[in-house]
């Protein structure tokens, strides 16, 4: 039943690609068709509910002209963002990847922004599949995965879903789902070195949304990087409670600066406000997600950035070749999934050399960030001497501690 209707709609969609020049009167007719169900629904509260689904179905059938030519070989790719796609942050990083994809031959992209992690995203995915003919979807927000992507993926086995977060589990999740993530804490470690080498008060400030493993790992790596070059450094963390709270982020930034912090960074959807506040107050900052260098020409030291272009273009190649991409894709500096913003003017050559050295070692895989012995900030041993947790170690993805040198307590 529903399959038939989807099909009917497919032909509808193809009609749309016909040049609209001569079809004004047709559109007027369609306008009337638009209004009728609206009005039926709006004005007649007593009208029977069954009428409404019948009307659009029949009108869709009426519109369905003898099937147009089958779709050309264009691959339609859908990108879904949880916030504005030009937010100087998480969503912009993905959007930049999408733009790179759109430049590939034979690719058409469809984007939808500000889609919440509710049924809305399920409907957006289905709408992209049903109405746009998308065969590959990139729902980019972490919270889209469970239950939303899983549910829709089961329903549409011929569509590929690639999700940012690294959550795929073999055997448990649908086969048409893949998951990718970057070890961005490597870049945070290097940014920490730069911060630790540049700070004068030995106080770093980290403004984060929520105390979740991804965030904690970034805070810890940042602090470990800083203390590797300057053991006196302390990082103070403020959790704002949500991913996009500009006023609270500004308030946190000011409070930290008042406490003597002179390098600020953030793990929220858009670090824009934090970086701008730091610049306004004359302290340093390091960025996250995308480059915020243009917002703080004086104080921006460096930043941990995603490089989704690399991941996405590789994916597209595979899908176009008719293969299912690898279910789980992760990488750090070595695979080029992450990058560092160019060093700012305030970074000394000595610090640059240290940072470059660490970056080279991380790229080569000879530097392990989480190596024992390591204590948390309450003095408890978390990694015994002689134990290494390399980046690929899955246990790092359920991190629930703050390392020595971080001020703050988790619930």
């Amino acid at each position, binding site marked *: 039943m529903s399959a038939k209707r989807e099909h009917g709609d497919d032909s509808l969609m193809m009609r749309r690609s016909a040049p609209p020049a001569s079809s004004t009167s047709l559109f007027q007719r369609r306008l009337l068709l638009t209004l009728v169900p609206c009005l039926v629904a709006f004005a007649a509260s007593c009208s029977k509910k069954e009428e409404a689904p019948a009307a659009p179905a029949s009108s869709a059938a009426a519109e369905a002209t003898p099937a147009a030519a089958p779709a050309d070989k264009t691959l339609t790719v859908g990108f879904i963002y949880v916030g*504005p796609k030009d937010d100087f942050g998480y969503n912009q990083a993905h959007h930049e990847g999408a733009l790179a994809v759109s430049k590939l031959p034979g690719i058409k992209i469809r984007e939808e922004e500000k889609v919440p992690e509710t049924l809305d995203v399920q409907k957006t995915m289905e709408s992209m599949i049903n109405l746009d003919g998308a065969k590959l979807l990139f729902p980019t927000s972490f919270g889209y995965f469970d239950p939303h992507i899983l549910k829709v993926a089961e329903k549409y086995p011929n569509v590929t879903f690639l999700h940012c977060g690294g959550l795929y589990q073999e055997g448990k999740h649908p086969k048409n789902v893949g998951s990718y993530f970057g070890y961005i804490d490597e870049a945070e470690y290097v940014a920490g070195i730069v911060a630790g080498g540049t700070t004068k008060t030995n106080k770093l400030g980290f403004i984060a949304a929520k105390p979740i493993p991804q965030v904690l790992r970034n805070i810890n790596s940042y602090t470990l990087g800083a203390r590797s070059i300057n053991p006196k450094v302390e990082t103070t963390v403020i959790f704002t409670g949500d991913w996009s709270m500009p006023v609270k982020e500004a308030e946190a930034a000011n409070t930290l600066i008042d406490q003597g912090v002179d390098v600020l960074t953030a793990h929220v959807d858009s670090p824009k406000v934090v970086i701008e506040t730091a610049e306004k107050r004359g302290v340093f900052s390091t960025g996250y997600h995308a480059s915020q260098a243009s917002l703080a020409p004086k104080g921006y030291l460096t930043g941990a950035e995603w490089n989704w272009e690399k991941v996405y273009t590789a994916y597209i190649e595979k899908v176009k070749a008719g293969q299912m991409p690898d279910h789980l894709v992760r990488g750090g500096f070595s695979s080029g999934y992450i990058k560092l913003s160019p060093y700012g003017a305030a970074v000394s050559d000595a610090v640059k050399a240290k940072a470059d050295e660490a970056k080279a070692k991380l790229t080569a895989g000879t530097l392990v960030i989480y190596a024992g012995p390591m204590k948390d900030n309450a003095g408890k041993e978390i990694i015994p001497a002689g134990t290494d947790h390399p980046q690929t170690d899955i246990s790092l993805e359920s991190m629930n501690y703050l390392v020595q040198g971080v001020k703050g307590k988790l619930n």
Partner: protein
Amino acid sequence: MSDTTLGLWGIPLAVLGGAIRVSTPFLFVSLGECITERSGRVNLGLEGTLVMGAMSGYGFSYLTGSPWLGVLGAGVIGSLLGALHGFICGKPRVNDIALGIAMMLLGVGLAFFLGKPLIQPTAPRLGAIPFGFFSSSAQLRSALNVNVLFVIGVALAPLLHFGLQNTRWGLVVRTVGESSEAARALGYNVNRVRLLATAAGGFLAGVGGSFLSLYYPGSWNEGLSSGQGLMAVALVIFARWSPKRCLYASLLFGGAGAIGPALQSVGITTGYYLWNAAPYALTLAILIASSSATRASADMPAELGAAR
């Protein structure tokens, strides 16, 4: 360099700074709504006006290069929205609260739509007056870095208070708000008074919005207002329709908002969500403590209840 570590003493200082930084939009919107409501009309749409003011203030500043023209532009846009609300509400049978909600939606929608190209560029922003120049403490100096809009807002509150109580136009507004029949009998055009009061309220709300984008946090983005405009309208009820009390309410609200981050900055992170809810809990507690069933809404303009 000696006193970079204020420790726990930083908290009251942060609350003071927070009160000054965060309270300004609440102050302007609530003062504006105060005028409107004293004339016997509610404009719930000020949330939309605030966001529109933030967007247009940033836009005007970007285009003209002058942040003060931005503030002015935001005010003008705000008063246009207010006038539209006032004009439609002047028609018989139109519910001002329902229209306010619709105007809120329209204002926010328009601001987001028109504001897309303004997310990335950087516009000239307002500066601050260093009132803390006397102190050697960097913390105190930053807490007392005050924007002129805040000063204007603080001065405006008693001024409005005086104006409403002691001037002719204040009397007219109050009369219209207490009894439209009496006002009509005295020969005043009730609708015109309310239209002007709503437009004036919109102007202040627009200016309050421009503070968000032009000073603190100081850029345009869509998450800028987490309901500050709606909250400010509610604060008018809390302040029992007195401009002076609007000032206190805004300061209290802004200061309480700084408690959460300040505690975390000295390492107290447990239960941070609950600390972040402090302004709301505190306001509710004071509201409950200060209300009483017997003199319920004695200060409320009589026409507010009757207007539906």
